[in-house]
């Protein structure tokens, strides 16, 4: 039987890779490999997953150097030579093995005012928004984020600038800026402006390159750059 040579990160920020041999199976995913190691080789291995079908966004890791969702990454796609190196996501503190502390990632969503602010109550009629409108199409392009952290992990600007909000939080802000029901436009534009916000983005396009949902945070960030500049020049913020 074919075997996979698997190296898995053990420890926290300080640590080392540990080698395992895992039987190669048909239609095997990287998450299957990690689960095999935890069940059959070393039960002390820590990792996160929940849905196993690409919905929950909890199983993201660094596979052969690239940030990926592991539940829908087939071994055949990333390990042509039957070698796998599995590490925790980049740019986030490692708690243990493959588990990162994602607090700063989600705190930045809050800092980017990622929460919808409306003016109506449940007693009011539903807003009518044309699916054909420019704003709704922009929302459509960015709304399917599963919060997995792959973009944040892939982004070099996050590594270089600790305060940078990162692609996911900015993508979220962009979908809200284009939500015509939202009432916090000016505050949100101010929250994502400047050196720690959208203007720090260098259009590396790594987030877009790696997003498992095929979203383009880069496009949303570019939209924010323009919107914030326009709001600054017009005195709105």
């Amino acid at each position, binding site marked *: 039987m074919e075997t996979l040579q698997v190296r898995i990160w053990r420890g926290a920020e300080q640590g080392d890779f540990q080698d395992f041999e895992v039987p190669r199976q048909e239609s095997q995913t990287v998450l299957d490999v990690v689960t095999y190691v935890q069940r059959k080789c070393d039960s002390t291995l820590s990792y996160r997953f929940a849905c196993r079908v690409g919905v929950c966004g909890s199983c993201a890791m*660094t596979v052969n*150097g690239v940030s990926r969702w592991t539940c829908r990454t087939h071994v055949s796609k990333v390990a042509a030579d039957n070698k796998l190196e599995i590490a*925790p996501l*980049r740019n986030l503190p490692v708690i243990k093995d493959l588990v990162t502390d994602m607090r700063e990632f989600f705190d930045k969503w809050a800092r980017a005012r990622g929460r919808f602010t409306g003016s109506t109550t449940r007693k009011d009629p539903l807003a009518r928004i044309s699916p054909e409108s420019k704003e709704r199409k922009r929302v459509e392009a960015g709304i399917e984020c599963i919060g997995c952290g792959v973009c944040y*992990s892939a982004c*070099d600007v996050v590594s270089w600038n600790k305060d940078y909000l990162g692609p996911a939080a900015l993508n979220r802000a962009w979908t809200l800026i284009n939500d015509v029901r939202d009432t916090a436009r000016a505050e949100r534009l101010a929250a994502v402006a400047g050196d720690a916000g959208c203007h720090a983005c260098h*259009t590396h396009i790594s987030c877009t390159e790696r997003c498992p949902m095929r979203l383009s945070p880069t496009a949303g960030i570019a939209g924010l750059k323009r919107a914030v500049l326009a709001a600054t020049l017009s005195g709105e913020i």
Partner: protein
Amino acid sequence: MKNDFRARNHPAYWAFIVHRGSGVLLALFLPLHFWALGQALHGAAALDGFLRWTEHPLVKFAETGLVLLLAAHMAGGVRLLVLEFLEWREWQKTLLAAAAGVSLVAGLAFLLNLV
């Protein structure tokens, strides 16, 4: 932990490296360029003194490099302006090829006229 080259190995990232590298080198070159042209303040003879130095093949080679850097920074910069200021589109990778093409044509044109 930080990313290594495996995470960065995609065309838009290479474009960033070229843009940043050429930007820094051009910024370092500018004071020298301004100094050389400033020789004209001391008359044609002073400027000629400098220009004779540029006849050296090595200098010509370096000049071609500079023209390439300038063209690459300009073409790559126009690409960035398009990506930042126009609504997102699918042909961004074509844009990258176009930027590379423009820089090479400029470098070649310079080289052919130089020798």
